[in-house]
């Protein structure tokens, strides 16, 4: 996972307070790697993610390079070329399409 700028930083959501409870709050937009790391760690904890996770740099360079915001899927072949690229989220974020590509291309 590559953690990029928040998609809905203005949203009123239930977020963890760190003591096992949840409370209404806003997950703020992130403008630095430090802020982004904090949000990622909360995301990983809450969603129980086990996949490797990286944070985009302060200048959102990787987000821009991959036109990733708000979310997007890519598969990069072992030769470094792009094998699969989804449409931009949310409508284009189709994990089933990626699954089909993986079944057809990765043995």
């Amino acid at each position, binding site marked *: 996972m590559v953690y990029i700028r928040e998609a809905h930083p203005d949203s009123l959501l239930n977020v963890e307070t760190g003591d096992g409870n949840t409370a209404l709050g806003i997950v703020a937009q992130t403008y630095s790697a430090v802020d982004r790391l904090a*949000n990622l760690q909360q995301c990983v904890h809450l969603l129980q993610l086990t996949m490797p996770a990286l944070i985009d740099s302060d200048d959102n360079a990787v987000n821009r390079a991959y036109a990733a915001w708000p979310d997007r899927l890519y598969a990069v072949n072992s030769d470094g070329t792009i094998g699969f690229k989804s449409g931009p989220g949310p409508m284009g974020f189709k994990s089933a399409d990626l699954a089909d590509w993986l079944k057809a291309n990765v043995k």
Partner: protein
Amino acid sequence: MFRSALCAVLAACAFLGPRCTANAQDLPQTRSMVAIGPSADGDLKRLREAILRNPDILDVSLRPISSGVLVRITGEFQPQELMLSLRSIGFDLMPPPTRSYMVSGPKDEAGLRRLTTALEAVPDADQVMLSAQADPVTVRVRGEASGLALLAAAKTAGFELTGMGSYAARVTVQPAALPKLREAVLRLPGVRQITLREVVGGATLDVRGMVDDDQLIGAAKGAGYEIRPLAAAGPNRAALAGAQPSGAAAPSGERNSPPGVGERAPEDLTKVGGVAPDFELLMKDGKSRVRLSDFRGKQPVILIFGSYT
């Protein structure tokens, strides 16, 4: 982003509140919402055409505002269907903002009726909801009406309004100027707490207490600072004044924030078959780094771009 499917349904009902169930006997209603997306003339034309494709929509007016395009629709429609159809042409639809105020002034019925009439007359004030039995009396105004215009209208009716809730903004300011900005904001009556956090390129500002967005922006401007709201006046922002324990009724709602500069790129730079842009990024442990090209010749890599929201 992982919550978006559920919250799209919540946001759809937030448009209408008690009118979430359409009644065929009702006269055509006019409702406002804010569309976020491209705002060139051709885009607004596409937006209007997309909305009018719904045969039960009688009229639509569009007006560019600071947070997007104010859309006023007369007729009947299903908000979620409209949201989905507008997303397919690059627009996100948001419920109109709601401002909450404490009311000071006469508490008799005639006086409060005068206040409601005065507030309803303010341009873009779509709905005025007065809690006359509450102590203190409060009023919520839904729509894009200017906060300063609401305050002025209340004053002519013999009332004072005090903004409620909290406010988040991003400021372009040098670190040395932060104390001066803090001082300017703290001078506003009703400000209970202010948090200024330095980030790349400036600071984020979080203000809690009885504060109105426009008063805050005005106070900052008077001290020489431009502040840009991180959150436009959103639904029931008074809820942010204190956290609720889990299990309490949660009026959560997802707002579709506008993309940052260059985020809705006119053309993607990557192509299937082309070389994936290389990068080296920090891992979630905050220490080690990973480079994409390290996997070249070894294994394919799946990249899932996203965020918690």
